[in-house]
């Protein structure tokens, strides 16, 4: 079931092209677009994505992560993915994360929530969860890509302007997750 790397790569290339061609009515979104392009480039070079770092993040227990409110989960995951160091990994063993994070990704995929899935994939990459266990999450994320190259199936999202903003945000979220996974894979290959 594992998605060939070439599928992921071509999805990121298409997303990058979409980001590059985007005409944004609100110039304040330019910064987000630039981050997206930077993440896509990092993915294609198999480099660790560089985002403005936060010093430290505390890893919740797996049980806390599962029972967390959705918005809190996304915020916490994003902080974890950007942190220089992670505190609180003990006493939960990695085997527990290997079981919980892929399952939680699938649970949010059932809710049709690519942003939450992408956030969890980034944390899974950070904690070294086996790539094969995340195949379903990655497949779900790739299925959210439009013909234009953006991520997020948002035909029901109302006004075009609002839809564009949401597409931009989702595309950056998904590309970030794919880049984080690719970098984690690259680090594994190097060892």
């Amino acid at each position, binding site marked *: 079931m594992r998605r060939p790397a070439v599928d992921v790569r071509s999805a990121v290339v298409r997303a990058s092209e979409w980001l590059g061609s985007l005409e944004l009515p609100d110039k304040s979104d330019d910064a987000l677009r630039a981050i997206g392009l930077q993440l896509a480039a990092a993915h294609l070079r198999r480099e660790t994505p560089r985002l403005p770092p936060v010093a430290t993040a505390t890893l919740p227990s797996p*049980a806390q992560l599962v029972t967390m409110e959705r918005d*809190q989960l996304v915020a916490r995951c994003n902080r974890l993915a950007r942190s220089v160091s992670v505190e609180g990994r003990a*006493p939960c063993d990695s085997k527990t994360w290997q079981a919980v994070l*892929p*399952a939680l990704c699938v649970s949010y995929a059932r809710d049709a929530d690519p942003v939450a899935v992408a956030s969890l994939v980034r944390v899974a990459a950070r904690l070294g969860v086996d790539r094969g266990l995340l195949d*379903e999450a990655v497949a779900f994320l790739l299925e959210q890509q439009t013909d234009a190259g953006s991520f997020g199936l948002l035909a029901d999202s109302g006004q075009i302007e609002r839809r564009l903003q949401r597409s931009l945000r989702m595309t950056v979220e998904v590309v970030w997750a794919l880049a984080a996974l690719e970098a984690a894979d690259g680090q594994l290959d190097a060892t």
Partner: protein
Amino acid sequence: MRRIPPAPTEPGELRQTFANVGARAAAWTTRNLARFTPLAAGEIDGRQLKRFSELAFVCACLTRPAPDGSQAILSEVLRWQDFVRERVEDATYREAVRKTPALAYPLLFPYLQLRSAGYRSSYHDATLARLTHHGHPLIEELLPYRRFERDLILWNAGLAAEPAWDELYDRTILARCRRLSFLDVGDMYSITHTVFYLSDIGRRPLADNLRTERIASILNSLVIHSWRLADWDLLCELLLGLRLIGRPTALCEPWQDAAAAFRDDGSLSSDGAPERSGRGDDPFASAYHTTLVGVLLADAVLRGCDAPLWTSVRR
């Protein structure tokens, strides 16, 4: 974030908790036995029959030597068994099977449960002989997991050959699913029921280790999903499935949360779970099924004390 009950100091503590909630849930069921009657206004009622059948099924599952700590449950189950036997032998009920052969299997289902525990009724056996002679109930077209259920129940009742376990299993969603995000709630219940039947409610060890690991992995993933949504009914069925195949969960907290979800009166309600249709204002209707599953789960926790309930390191 939902409040999670304090972690137990050891698995024995959690087992004791389940002994207590299981006994309370069984007592709640006994207090509500009248609500399980298959008759409404002197006639067979479809909704009532479903409740009655579920009670008979749980009776048959639990009518066996009780493990330590489960005697309180067994003593209640024996009262349920008397209740089921009396209703099945009621003249209106007995005649209904012959009057409406199209409904013969659902009507005979409770009797088949009693039969698997050794009870015999010459009247119902004669009805069964006539129906079987004319090809019933094997003519029915059923969903794969329902076919599994029927073949198992007829075998346990001494009326059919041993189920073709592998063949029946291979047709189910559990055997065929490749992506869990494709499953709807009905599919998840198909999976839990397939595990119940494949393991003959814990009486048949699963020989194929690879298959067992795959099933455990699927159940564990769905445990995380149902626990996140506080869907106690599905969560308890999934935890029960893992117990029946002797596999642990990844975390201890779903067990704690499930035990804490039992109400003070002993009932366990599915209220609040998403994707579940409302059951109106009748607390019994929204609680009876989950409570019965809770009793089965408590009994399963108390059996096989050597098998770990969870694998994770405590917080």
